[in-house]
């Protein structure tokens, strides 16, 4: 399988590569639009700050490429947030794939949310063999507002979208590569889409 990770200098890519390696697949980093467009599956990672991440995407033209992809695409963490309409982080316009906005948790809770939280209201084959109430590992200060494209929700201060799907585009707020068995199952499901 031709599995590509969009490389725009974001975050800890090694963990994602190792997670696929444990499943027996090689995920290759690429910033080349011609390579990415031909891949069977595309991972869109992201850790860091939204506006600078978006700037990097624009520099390499990847901002125009990603919404045009037709194969299954999985955005992880900030990757998912950048696929939304806009985010309050750095007042950044997103790729507009998911019709929802990204906001910051208030100071009524500790920010970032850090640790294991449950996912529920699971829809989509992405959650095949994952149960309501299974735990995923999250680290984030901003959240996507719950919307019609939610395929999982979590609670932290309020109910928010912890996973989204529109057509071939999938996004997860949690880190499946760090979410033990449930995360492994999700990555496996993505490979089988």
């Amino acid at each position, binding site marked *: 399988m031709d599995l590509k990770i969009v490389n725009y200098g974001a*975050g*800890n890519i*090694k*963990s994602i590569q*190792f*997670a696929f*390696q*444990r499943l027996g697949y090689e995920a290759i980093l690429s910033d080349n639009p011609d390579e990415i467009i031909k891949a069977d599956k595309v991972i869109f990672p992201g*850790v*860091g*700050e939204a506006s600078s991440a978006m700037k990097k995407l624009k520099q390499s033209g990847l901002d125009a490429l990603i919404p045009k992809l037709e194969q299954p695409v999985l955005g992880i963490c900030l990757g998912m947030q950048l696929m939304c309409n806009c985010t309050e982080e750095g007042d950044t316009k997103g790729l507009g794939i998911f019709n929802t906005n990204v906001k910051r948790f208030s*100071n009524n809770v*500790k*920010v*970032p*949310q*850090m*640790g*294991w*939280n*449950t996912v529920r209201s699971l829809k989509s084959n992405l959650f095949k063999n994952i149960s309501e109430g299974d*735990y995923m*590992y999250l*680290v*984030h*200060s901003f959240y996507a507002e719950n919307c019609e494209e939610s395929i999982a929700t979590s*609670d*932290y201060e309020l109910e928010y979208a912890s996973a989204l799907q529109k057509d071939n585009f999938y996004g997860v707020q949690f*880190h499946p*590569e*760090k*979410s*033990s*068995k449930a*995360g*492994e199952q999700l990555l496996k499901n993505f490979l089988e889409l």
Partner: protein
Amino acid sequence: MLTKRIVPCLDIKNGRTVKGVNFVDLRDAGDPVILAKQYADLGADELVFLDIAATLENRKTMHDMVLKVAEQVNIPFTVGGGISSVEDVDALLHCGADKVSINSSAVKRPELINELSNKFGSQCVVVAIDAKQIDGEWFVHLAGGTIPTDIKLFDWAIEVEQRGAGEILFTSMNHDGTKAGFANEALAKLSELVNIPIIASGGAGTIQHFADTFIDGKADAALAASVFHFGEIPILELKKELKKQGIPVRL
């Protein structure tokens, strides 16, 4: 619901796990990669690796270890010890570490916290604080607790949050190694003062100590070493008991 985290800490010296009692008298507790994998399988929520003898020669051994852990372990882990620059952190994150923990270097040059959180995001910057209560006042100590400073714990905690730390790992030197419970009063005060997660460290001896630090100490995570390494407290049993007491844990 967000759960409370149980965090085994592996003190690393020359690529091996050791545990100090009151920061001295080192005992050998095994291969860190094997231990890490075991902990992940047994239900640990996160792991911390502290390079307690961080030297330049040791650096490569540590990078190799981090790579091997990242390759085999499917839960998040933090690496600390001897980290003093953006380059140090870059190298560790590239080896697959999820977060780094800085301590003395942050006290010596607090701007390091800003630099790291700007470059890598605050989610991967843990500021570890070792403090000792002297005549009722908590003072920050450096270099594995060997060097006292006149910096007050609570002032420092507020400053590290403002500079962009994503989490505080607080070790009470009065409690560390005693197995008599965590410093819950100081922990609760920390939790009220800052709005980032607090990891309690130092003093774990019984299952009830963990329950107490989550309830009385308001800690978000609890870290321990020897009680886990030597099998005194099995993680599954610990989490079952915490759940029984109404504390949210991942089971």
